[in-house]
C-alpha cells in the first residue's frame, strides 16, 4: 500500500502510523454530554466503501494526514494535511 503524502509524495505504507477515523478531528466541547464524548471516542462506523482516516507520517515529515480511501477497492482517493493549508 502507498499513500500520497501532500508534502513527500507517494510513500510506502511502512512510513505511516495508522490512527483510526478522521472524526477524531472533531473534538467536542469540554462540557458536552457523556454521550457526545462516548461517540467521539468509541463509536465508529465500519463502512464498506468510502472512509476517511488519520495517518501520521511518522517516518517521514511528521505530518498528520487525512486520507480518503475505499475500504473495498483499497483505492486511496485523496490525502490532505490535518492542519490545513497553513504552513
Amino acid at each position, binding site marked *: *500500500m*502507498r*499513500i500520497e503524502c501532500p508534502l513527500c509524495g*507517494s510513500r*510506502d505504507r511502512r512510513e505511516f*502510523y495508522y*490512527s483510526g477515523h478522521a472524526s*477524531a*478531528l472533531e*473534538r*467536542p466541547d*469540554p*462540557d*458536552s454530554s*457523556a454521550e457526545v*464524548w462516548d461517540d467521539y*471516542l468509541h463509536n465508529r462506523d465500519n463502512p464498506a466503501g468510502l472512509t476517511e482516516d*488519520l495517518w*501520521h507520517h*511518522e517516518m517521514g515529515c*511528521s*505530518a*498528520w494526514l487525512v486520507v480518503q480511501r475505499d475500504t473495498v*477497492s*483499497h*483505492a*486511496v482517493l485523496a490525502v490532505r*494535511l*490535518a*492542519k*490545513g493549508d*497553513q504552513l
Partner: protein
Amino acid sequence: MRVSGKGLIDRNTVLNFKFNGQPFQGFSGDTLASALLANDQRLVARSFKYHRPRGIMTAGSEEPNALVTVQRGKSQEPNTRATVQRLYEGLVAQPQNAWPSLKFDALGVNDLLSPFLVAGFYYKTFMWPRAFWERVYEPFIRHAAGLGALAEAYDHDLYEKAFAHCDVLIIGAGPSGLMAALTVARSGLDVILADENDRLGGRLLSEVEEVAGVAGHMWVDDALAELVGFANVRIMTNTTVTGAYDQGTYGALERVGHHLDMVPEGLPLESFWRITAKRAILCSGALERQIAFPDNDRPGIMTASGMRSYLNCYGVSPGQKIAVFGNNSDAHRTARDFAEAGVEVVAMIDSREGTSTQVDYPTYAGAEVVATSGRLGLKSISIRHNGGLKTIECDALGVSGGWNPSVHLTCHMNGRPVWDPSLASFLPKEDAIPGLVVAGAASGVMTTAGALAQGCQMAQSVAKDLGKRLMPSDLPHAEDRPYEIEPFWDVGGKGRAWLDFQNDVTTKDVKQAVQENFRSVEHMKRYTTQGMATDQGKNSNITALAVLADATGRGIPETGTTTFRPPYVPVAMAALGAGGQGKGFAPERFLTSDRATRALRAPMIEAGLWYRPSYFPKDGETHWRQSCDREVAMVRTAVGLCDVSTLGKIDIQGPDAVAFLDLLYTNSFASLKVGRVRYGLMLREDGHVMDDGTCARLSNSHYLMTTTTAAAGQVMRHMDFVHQALRPDLDVSFTSVTEHWAQFAVAGPQARALLNGILDRKISDKTMPYMGCGAVQLGGIEARLFRISFSGEHAYELAVPARYGDSLFRLLLAQAEALGGGPYGIEALNVLRLEKGFITHAEIHGRITAFDIGMGRMISDKKDCIGKSMAARSGLNGPERDQLVGLRPVGAVKKIIPGAHLFEPDAAPIRKNDQGYVTSMCYSPTAETVIAQAFLRDGRNRMGQAVKMVDHLSGVTTLCEVCNPVFFDPEGGRLRG
C-alpha cells in the same frame, strides 16, 4: 537420455552432481531435473500421502513432484523444485518423503491402505477417544505431515530485502513480455523486466517454430541484446513476481545464490524485492494441465509441453518410446518434435474425433488412455480406441489437457477470473489490479504471433497512459496456427486418477466430497486438500473443479474457482523476514556512557531499544542484590550517578507554548516561572493516564518537556496530533532533543558538593533551589542543570551536548568515587523510586486514571485539557476504583510478586473476590523489608488493613499490610535539603 543435436545446453562444460547418494553428470545450462532425466532417473520422489513413486512432471516452477533437498555447505534447503534448480558443479540433492530409500519406501504401505485414507480420513478417524488427541494422534499426524525437513541448525545464509521503483513492470520474458519490454524501452520510460528463469525467453526456448525467420532462442538473444543497450531497462532474472498489492506494489523473490555451491561472503541467497510500478504488464504465460485417468501419476508421465521443453531446450528425451495423450492441437507438437528428433513415437492419442494427421507415427483419434503399468516407472499404457482396448509399450507419456492462462496475480486483489468456453479456461478479469494489463498466453492469446502483437499493443497503451506516444513498431513474423481444444477432463474408470499430485487428491476424493455434501468449491478444497500443497493447485485446480462441476451437475462457471492468493511460488519465511535477522531486527540505542559502563562490567538490560546498566558489580559481589543494595545505600548516604539520557526531551517554543502545555497536561503551567521545573501529568482523551514527567521553563516562551523512556515516541506523536489536528491555530513549534543532550542524574546528600567540584560557577540552594533549573557551564561548555529527583534525595540532572557525554560521565564517576559514591543502575533506580513512592509505566499501564494514583486533584478545574471531560466520568472516580497503595509483608512469608492478585485475608482467592493486584516490588535496604506498589479496591481508605496476596502461578500466598506508597521521607525534607 540425451538427444544429439538438440537443446541449448553447453555440451563442452560437464558438471558433476550427486542425487540420492549417486554421482551423475550433466551439462552447463541444465536444471537438476533435465540432468536427472538425461541420466534416465525417472523415479525422483515419493508422494506425500500414499508415498507413491513419482517422477518429474513439468519443466517449470509449477512442478508438483520433483521436490528435493539441496545441501549447500552446512545448510540444507528442503522443497527445492528440481525443475528450477540450475545445475552447478558439485551439487548434492536428496529425495524427500522416502524412508528408508526411494525405491523401497516403508510408508508406501499407505498406498495399500488407500481405500481407508480417503478424503476426510483425518477428520473422521482422529475424533475419539478424546484422550488420544494430544498423546497419540497429534504426534502421529506431525510425523506424517510436512514436506522435507529443515536443517535444524542456525541458518547462516543471508536473505536481503530491497526496494525498486519503475514506470512499467513487465512480469515474464516470453514472447509477449520481451515484445512489451522492447516497445516500452523505446519510449524512455523506466522498465523492469522480471522473469523467474535464469534464461529469458519463456516458451520460445522450448519450441522449434521460428520468429522473424530465425530460431526462437536466437530472436530472444537479439531482443536481449537490444534491451541491454537501454539505460532505462533493468532486467531481473531468477526473479519471480510473487504478489500484486495495493497502489502498484509488487513482491518479487530473486534467487541470487541458489546456483552457487559456496555463496560468497556478503552475497544473499535470496533477495525479496518490493517493486513499485506505475503500470505493470503481466506476461506470465500459461501452464499446461493434466487429464485424469487411472494411475496417471507414474514416473514417466508428464506434461506434453514439459516433455517438449526437455527435448528442445535441454536436448533430453525422458524416454525411448514416447506416447502423447491430449485433447488439443498443441499436444501434437510434442509428438512431431520427438519424431523429428529421431526419438521413437509410439502413439499420438487425441481424445477428439477426426484429428488424425498424415504423420509417420501411429495416431489415435477419439481415443483415451484408460490404464498404465510400471511400478517405479511407466512401462505401458492401455488405450480405448474404436471401441476396443489396446496396450502400447512406452516409457514416457506426455499429457495435455489444455492450457490454463497464468491469471494468478490478477486474482491477488480479489479479482475473479472469467470462464472462456472456447479455450476451456479461465481468463483474467479486466482491471482486476489497478494499473495492470495482461498480454500473451496469460490473457488467452495462444499463438506466438498473437503474443508478440499483444505485448506490443499493451506496451503502447501503457506508455500512452504515462504520457508517451510511440511509433508503431514492426512485429516479427511468427507462427499463427490456431489453438484448438475440446474439453476433456476425466477418463473415468475404476482405478484411482490423480488430480493433485502433491496432496494425493484423486477424482474419487472430489466425488466423495460431493457425496458428503461438500459441494462448494471452497468446501471441496478444504475437505480433500485439493490445491493446498506448495504448488497451490497450479497443475490441478481447474481439472479438479471441472470434476466437481460434473459431479454436482453444475457448469464450470457456476462452480467458480477458489481464490489465488500471494505468493505465486513458495517463499521462504527467511526471505519474507529478510533484513530482520540478528541485529537487523530492531535498532539498538546506546548511551554516550555505554563504553565506560561496559568497562565497569555492568550487565546491560534492554529498555525499549535502549541498553541501560542493570547494576555495577564490585569485586566480591556475586549476586545482583548485593550490588543493588549497596548502590541504594550509596545514594542515600553519599552520592550516586546514573545516565538518564533515555528520557524523552522535547523542546517547545512559541508565544502559545504555555497554552499548548495547558492543553496537554492536567495541571496548569501558566504560573510556572522561568528557571523552574514542574511535574506534569498527561492523560489520553479517554481520561486515562498517558505519561508523566517534568517540564522546565527555560525562558519566556521556551520550555523543555521530559517524558518517560517508554512513552517518548507515543508522546511525540500525541503532541503532533494535538497541535496539527486539534489546535493548528496555536503558535508553537516543538522538536525532540532527546538525543542532543546526554543527561546524568546526580543524587544523594553529596550531590551539590560533587557538582560544585566541576561547575565553572558554584551553585547554592538559593541559585538552584528544589525544582529549579538553569544554564550552567563546565569548562566553558554550555550545559543545563535541573534540580529534580526520582530518588527522594537531594538530586540534580545535568545535561551536556551528547558529544561530551562520555567525557562527563567519566568525570562525574571520578568525582563521585572521591566522595564515597559511584554509579548506580536500573535496579537501584527502581528501588529508590519505590522507596519514595514514585510511579513508572508498571503503574500507569493504560487502565489507570489520575484518581487511581491519587492525583485527581492535579486535573485543574480552571482550564480544559486532553482527557479532562472523560476523566470526570462516573466509574472513574470512586471507591469502586483500584487505587495505588503501598504493601509490606507482615506474616511469615515475605515474598511479594508483581502481577499477583489481592484478596481479603479470609476470602477464597477466586476471581469474584479479587480486590486488586501488585504492580512493582523490591527489597528496600532502607526500610529493611520487601515493599511493593499495588492497586487495591478503595485502597486509600484501607491503610493499615491486611490483605492477602495470592500468586496463582507460583502458588505463593503472602499476608500484607496496606500502607502509604511513600516509604521514605514522606515529608520530602531530603529533596529540599
